[in-house]
């Protein structure tokens, strides 16, 4: 029953989206507010309908309706309820519905804002969001439908939406969610990433509306500033939560492996970050109009591309892509929207001309340009790193068709992993850090080497002190010293910026320093929120440099009562306890940690083997301090017993600063995005 309800609601939404698109275009063309209002209502209606559809699927998941093929694929009776709910986005079909539902929520929220000043944008915003929604609904309905059921027919089991002649409902064998996804991270990480993805559609929709209506001054940017910031925040949070999840679950001592799936989510973040910066130049100096359009169009395309990469199976094999209809459909959609958008930019090319002049290579707008160049450069590195292996594999099709070219187009698979990305993107990230240390000191308009020099020397001197401290603390590698100096410098600039403004306010108004800081930030949230985000990036970079440059590790088999040494740490294998539950058999070791010979706590790394899939999940034991993490894993391919168990021990210096920085990043984004009372009209 609920299957039909969910399916019906999904189908109705699909029809309504088409109506909305038609009504909006007609309303805009005939300048008829009634039709636009009708389109707006259609948009608003998609949300309750998709909520109904999503809730139906959640009900089916939670109550174990295994006649629905998707339910059987991602849940099993032994899973806790919260994981059954999260299974909504645990598989392909469900996540397409979930994506659509979030998209409709965001678009509806936009519909509810005041449109008085932006009436001409409204129909086109509706068109863009509904076209995007309709595309995802198309996939969820006709390619990967989560409501397909298993039927017993005279010819055997069949999977279909509706009852074939002479068939009756059958129950599929529940397989359950991949054990690696059975983690609290599953509750929050995918929704954050998806929220980031769908909310970037909003600024894109306004950009297209600005192009179509010809009202392409900076109004669309001002309207969507907070939407963009929210999108950026969700995407950032999604990426960081994913990193933390990998660190806690995957058990390889790291947080980021430059896996194509990770890179797919990073790419829109890179162009989105560039966009967040470059729109400031348009607002302040009325420049870069074309570039901003290009950036948001690219970001939108990358959002869809990222979903495509993670959802089409193309990464595991190009052949999987060719076999399923979902890949070509995505490809077509990205192509059509991208070309149409660029066409609109070309159509408005002349009116997007910049009137104002740039005067100095040392001005802030010039620095923003360099920032954009660096972010786009990292994006190019990432894009090629993901796409090139797909291309080389795809050339195999040519080789297979034309035997004489078989040796040229071998279609051989290649891996593009950390060695490529680190070498290519590492220096670019370092350059970004350096720029972060110069840009806030440069003025808009004119700025010369002299004015910049006057502003720079104090933080520069402070950073040299940090360099000396790092050297004294034992850092000798030139790369590490350079990295620490960069961090020190970028950090000092931010502290200097805060410090001198607070002091000025303090001596002028007589407020105490804390009150002065509070008032200062309150008066210019955007500037100081941005500075806080920069500070968070410095902290996160400290964590990344710590683990990337100074991680040490060892592996060894030790019998109970014996120790394994790593640097000034020693771990003692004290005990082992197997526990069998309904889903898995979990073996937990007790490890006593010693630091410099003194007891430093107990850890419990464990390893669980899941009955339904036979998959092993290792959970590391973690001793976390600001100085370093001791990360102990029970190696999962060796036997474990009292006689001996194999442990892998990592020491990850400074890595906690990465997570602390992430918290500051969220706080800073809230500061930057919070409405400013005095400027509200």
């Amino acid at each position, binding site marked *: 029953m609920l299957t039909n309800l969910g399916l019906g609601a999904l189908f109705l939404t699909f029809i309504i989206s088409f109506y909305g698109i038609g009504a909006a275009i007609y309303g805009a063309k005939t300048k008829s507010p009634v039709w636009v209002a009708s389109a707006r209502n259609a948009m608003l209606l998609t949300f309750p309908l998709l909520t109904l559809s999503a809730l139906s699927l959640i009900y089916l998941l939670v109550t174990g309706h295994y006649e629905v093929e998707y339910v059987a694929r991602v849940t099993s009776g032994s899973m806790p309820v919260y994981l059954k709910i999260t299974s909504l986005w645990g598989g392909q079909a469900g996540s397409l519905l979930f994506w659509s539902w979030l998209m409709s929520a965001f678009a509806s929220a936009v519909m509810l804002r005041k449109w008085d000043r932006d009436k001409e944008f409204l129909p086109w915003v509706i068109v863009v969001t509904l076209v995007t929604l309709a595309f995802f609904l198309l996939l969820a309905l006709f390619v990967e439908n989560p409501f397909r059921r298993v039927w017993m027919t005279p010819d055997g089991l069949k999977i279909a939406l509706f009852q074939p002649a002479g068939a009756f409902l059958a129950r599929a064998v529940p397989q359950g969610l991949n054990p690696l996804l059975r983690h609290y991270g599953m509750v929050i990480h995918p929704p954050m990433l998806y929220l980031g993805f769908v909310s970037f559609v909003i600024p894109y929709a306004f950009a297209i509306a600005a192009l179509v209506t010809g009202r392409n001054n900076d109004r669309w940017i001002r309207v969507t500033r907070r939407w963009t910031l929210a999108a950026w925040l969700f995407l950032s949070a999604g990426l960081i939560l994913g990193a933390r999840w990998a660190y806690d679950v995957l058990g390889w*001592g790291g947080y980021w492996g430059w896996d194509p799936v990770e890179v797919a989510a990073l790419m829109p973040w890179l162009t989105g970050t560039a966009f967040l910066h470059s729109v400031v130049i348009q607002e302040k100096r009325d420049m870069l109009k074309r570039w901003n359009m290009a950036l948001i169009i690219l970001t939108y395309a990358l959002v869809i591309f990222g979903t495509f990469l993670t959802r089409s199976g193309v990464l595991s094999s190009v052949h999987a892509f060719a076999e399923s209809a979902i890949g070509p459909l995505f490809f077509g959609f990205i192509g059509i929207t991208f070309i149409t958008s660029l066409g609109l930019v070309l159509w408005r090319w002349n009116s997007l001309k910049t009137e*104002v*002049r740039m005067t100095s*290579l040392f001005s802030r707008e010039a620095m923003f340009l360099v920032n954009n160049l660096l972010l786009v450069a990292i994006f190019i*590195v990432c894009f*090629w790193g993901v796409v090139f292996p797909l291309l080389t594999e795809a050339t195999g099709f040519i080789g297979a068709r034309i035997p004489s070219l078989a040796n040229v187009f071998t279609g051989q698979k290649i*891996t593009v992993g950390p060695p490529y990305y680190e070498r290519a993107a590492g220096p670019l990230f370092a350059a970004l850090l350096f720029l972060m240390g110069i840009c806030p000191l440069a003025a808009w308009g004119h700025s010369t080497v002299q*004015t910049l020099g006057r502003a720079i020397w104090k933080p520069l001197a402070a950073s040299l002190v940090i360099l000396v401290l790092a050297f004294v603390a034992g850092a000798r590698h030139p790369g590490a010293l350079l990295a620490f100096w960069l961090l020190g410098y970028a950090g000092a600039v931010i502290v200097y910026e805060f410090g001198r403004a607070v002091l000025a306010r303090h001596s002028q108004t007589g407020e105490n320093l804390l009150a002065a800081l509070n008032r200062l930030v309150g008066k210019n949230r955007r500037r100081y929120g941005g500075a806080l985000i920069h500070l968070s990036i410095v902290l996160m970079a400290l964590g990344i440099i710590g683990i990337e440059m100074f991680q040490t590790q060892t592996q060894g088999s030790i019998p109970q009562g014996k120790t394994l040494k790593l640097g000034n740490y020693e771990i003692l294998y004290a005990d082992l306890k197997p526990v069998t539950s309904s889903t898995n058999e979990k073996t937990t070791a007790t490890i006593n940690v010693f630091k410099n010979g003194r007891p430093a706590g107990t850890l419990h790394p464990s390893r669980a083997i899941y009955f339904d899939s036979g998959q092993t999940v290792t959970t590391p034991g973690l001793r976390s301090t600001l100085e370093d993490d001791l990360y102990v894993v029970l190696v999962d391919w060796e036997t474990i017993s009292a006689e001996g168990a194999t442990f892998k021990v990592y020491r990850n210096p400074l890595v906690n600063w990465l997570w602390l920085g992430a918290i500051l990043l969220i706080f800073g984004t809230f500061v930057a995005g919070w409405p400013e009372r005095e400027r509200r009209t």
Partner: protein
Amino acid sequence: MVQKMVLPMKNLLLLPAVLFLALLTAGAAVAQSPTPAAITDDQVNAVARELFCPECENIPLDVCPSTACADMRAEIRQKLEQGWTKAQIKQYYVERYGDRVLGAPPARGWNWLMYVIPPAAILAVAWVFYNAFRAWKRPTPQTVAQPSETQSPPAVADDYVARLEAELKKAKK
């Protein structure tokens, strides 16, 4: 008699030489095949870390839990025991499974594109930026000399910064 004496003498003289030779060959034998305990997990992982699982996607060999990878690590241990270098072992796996066992493709054949395209694309974007910058700068050559006469805003266009600078000046006084 003399001869009789000579022979044992000869043998006695030979003895240390034989012993020495025996020790030498034994030593060489030990050096050639050390006991398995001589190769630590860390030495195996140091090689495995630079290789990728040939079956699964993007999982480094030192952390891959699959049986195929466990067998590969055992094989690496054997090869290290036999005195193979890291480079030789990597080459061995490339010949067996193809370039995909390496973390980044070696720059040969089509793979050159892997390393040529990104810098070329970045340079192209940089070139576009540079040209845009020059176009923006061209019509106002006198700005540096007479900034007050140009249309562009003064050095501190940001009124917030202006206020801050003013406050700073006051504070200094």
